[in-house]
């Protein structure tokens, strides 16, 4: 899977499922501060990653990520 495909799938999840504001979706956006990611959203994101990319993030791993770019990179590293 290419980096662009990862980004497209993640962005679609963030806007369609979590209903984050599309205009706020930029690589440098902070997950918590700019997108409003809550702790339950982080768990939802873990479930999405397992279903979509085939690996189970470690418990609490998503909450340690700061920016959206960090999330892309985390998936790319573990896929």
């Amino acid at each position, binding site marked *: 899977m290419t980096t662009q495909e990862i980004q497209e799938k993640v962005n679609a999840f963030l806007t369609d499922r*979590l*209903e984050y504001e599309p205009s706020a979706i930029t690589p440098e956006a902070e997950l918590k501060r700019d997108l*409003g990611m*809550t702790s*339950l*959203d982080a*768990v*939802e994101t873990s*479930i999405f990653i*397992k*279903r979509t990319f085939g690996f189970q993030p470690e418990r609490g791993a998503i909450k340690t990520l700061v920016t959206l770019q960090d999330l892309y990179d985390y998936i790319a590293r573990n896929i």
Partner: protein
Amino acid sequence: MRRVVVTGMGIWSCIGQDLLTVTESLRQGRSGIVFDSKRIEYGLQSGLVGNVPIPNVKAELQRYFRDKMSDDGMYAYCAAKQALTFAHVTDKYLLKNSMGILWGNDGNPSEISHFYTDYKNIELSPSLFYRYHTSSTTSNLANIFGLHGISLTIEAACASSSHAIGLALMFIRTGMQDTILVGGSCSTNKESAVAIDAATALSLRNNDPLHASRPFDKDRDGFVLGGGAAALVLEEYEHAVERGATILAEVCGYGFSSNGIEEISMPSAEGEYIAMKRALDDAGLQPSDIDYVNAHATSTIAGDIEEAKALTRLFAPPNPSSGSSETSASSPYISSTKSMTGHENWMAGASEAVYSILMMQNGFVAPNINLENVIDEAKDFNIVRETIYTPIRTVLSNSSGMGGTNSALVFRKI
């Protein structure tokens, strides 16, 4: 003693989703019951249900909240929003005042029933917990509206939201709260009907939904599941006057009892009588002071008879000299609005408070529809079969929950 008044109401039910529509439905004796063949396909014996639309709240409620709400939470949100808007309870008010919430509802089995058999193979949403547990609706409403006072879910089966109103009355009387959002909500989905269907408590008049709920009628065969949500803003009288709020009615009496009998599924005339008598005593009223009784009467075989016996004891006590039970010259008007709405269970105490106050406000008594052959135990009552236009100053609203918990409320026009 601090007095408690109603300054806002909201409703989302099978006879309307706003106060105006519901008032007209009550006035016209319009049933909200339908037959849904999907319930039979699912395996229920009764395909009857109150036709309650699921509200579309996507435009006004962000995903973060919606994810954590079951269908009864959605109903509750709509009813509560109506009540708070009516009462002019604004965000500014809530920042300065610690408003409470006491809400009657059940858990939400439909949210988890699909997962029991294959749990290990299903990824559950982390929001699921917040949708299914019994306090889900209460905590959702408290967080959505920014309520900072008492927050409790009252689970007392079909008397839940009546008790919620009674407990709010006590909290406000004692000075612990000035305003409390009270109400109740009830799902109508098929999963929520499974257990009560198995208990054979539901009507099987599947081919005649409009006439299936027939409280006090000899041909009744069980209740019909209704639902939705009802909400009221209860407020200390002086507080309401200072705010310039519209006062709809006073809540002046609360009575309660537990049957404490061996058979958990049996209603009790004794228990219901005690609750209603306590409510009247609490209000400082005599039975003859009551203009209208909104009966609990659900259209079950045993329940309607026991309530009729309790009402007979309260309003027409036997005359020792004559042996007759017909001593009360001023028997109140009586009707069961469940004849139109079905049994709204956890919501019923609150919805019937709303229905009763709407009648009080508009000067009529809604009919007990579908009453063709009244049961012997209720034959001496003024059960209203057609809408009666008359001033209503005082209402006694009776509720009884499966398992033997009873609650009664008295409302007065001021």
